[in-house]
């Protein structure tokens, strides 16, 4: 995986596959260059044992391939920087995946095109799950939510090309301002 925004794309697919209705994504960069990415969903969740197993390289509930990949891969990339990935989950309640990346570590992946990740998720799932994005850095903070956007647009759907372009551009402006200096 080339960058952190692609790991986010991949982890969001897990939430969608788990039947989430709401996915909250928090990205926070602190003064020391530590990036915390937290993905919380209200999907079907996992038992503690299943969550533990999901971090071994051989766990998947998919039937097309025997090994899961996404979580162990993200964890490996977080650990390369001195960070980690942890899972908090409960069956029928939901899942929170928290990743920390030390962005000043030489092995840290670039953030990548966060705006395109969110836009792609919205374009492919215009009727939900809802996405709540919150971005924080020493330079400020901003938020975006599909529920409010859908309300403003009603009855124009979120996957209207002009809307997807608007989401992409506005998130790009925000991420440039907040995370621009930091890779």
């Amino acid at each position, binding site marked *: *995986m*080339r960058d952190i925004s*692609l790991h986010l*794309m*991949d982890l969001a*697919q897990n939430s969608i*596959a788990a039947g989430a209705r709401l996915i909250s994504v928090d990205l926070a960069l602190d003064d020391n260059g530590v990036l915390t990415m937290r993905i919380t969903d209200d999907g079907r969740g996992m038992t503690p044992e299943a969550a533990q197993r999901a971090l071994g390289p051989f766990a998947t509930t*998919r039937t*097309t*391939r025997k090994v899961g*990949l*996404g979580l162990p*891969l993200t964890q490996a990339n977080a650990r390369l920087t001195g960070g980690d990935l942890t899972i908090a989950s409960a069956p029928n309640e939901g899942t929170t995946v928290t990743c920390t990346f030390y962005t000043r570590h030489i092995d840290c992946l670039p953030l990548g*095109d966060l705006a*395109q*990740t969110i*836009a*792609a998720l919205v*374009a*492919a*799932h215009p009727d939900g799950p809802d996405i709540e994005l919150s971005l924080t850095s020493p330079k400020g903070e*901003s*938020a*975006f939510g599909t529920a409010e*956007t859908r309300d*403003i*647009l009603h*009855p*124009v*759907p979120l*996957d*209207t*090309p*002009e*809307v*997807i*372009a*608007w989401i*992409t*551009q*506005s998130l790009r*402006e*925000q991420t440039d301002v907040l995370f621009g200096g930091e890779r």
Partner: protein
Amino acid sequence: MKSIAELEEIRKRTLQRINLRREDKESEVRVVVGMATCGIAAGARPVMMAFVDEIGRRHLSQVTVSQTGCIGMCRLEPMADVFLPGEEKVTYVNLDADKARRIVAEHVVNGRPVTEYTIGNAENNKQQA
């Protein structure tokens, strides 16, 4: 965040079009992009957005783009299926953004599949090699 006024503008501009789009499910074209770990790592996200962008640029209101999970052919990712009404699905493999745009121009708009990007073509080449 870019101004909410811009969103209101977009709403006004696009309001008339949505009725057209809703009425006619029969003539809907579907593009489905594989978006599992293997697909994402191979470049599925820019492929998907190239489909979305090219379809928007050409004002093709009868086309929807969606995504699916892993179908177990990781080495052929990024992959996409194109469904035209009343026709067999066409599976494209090893895509990139430029190939996606060409598929919109030739297959989605003009109804002629881009044979060289299809899975059938990829398998034939493998047998010959």
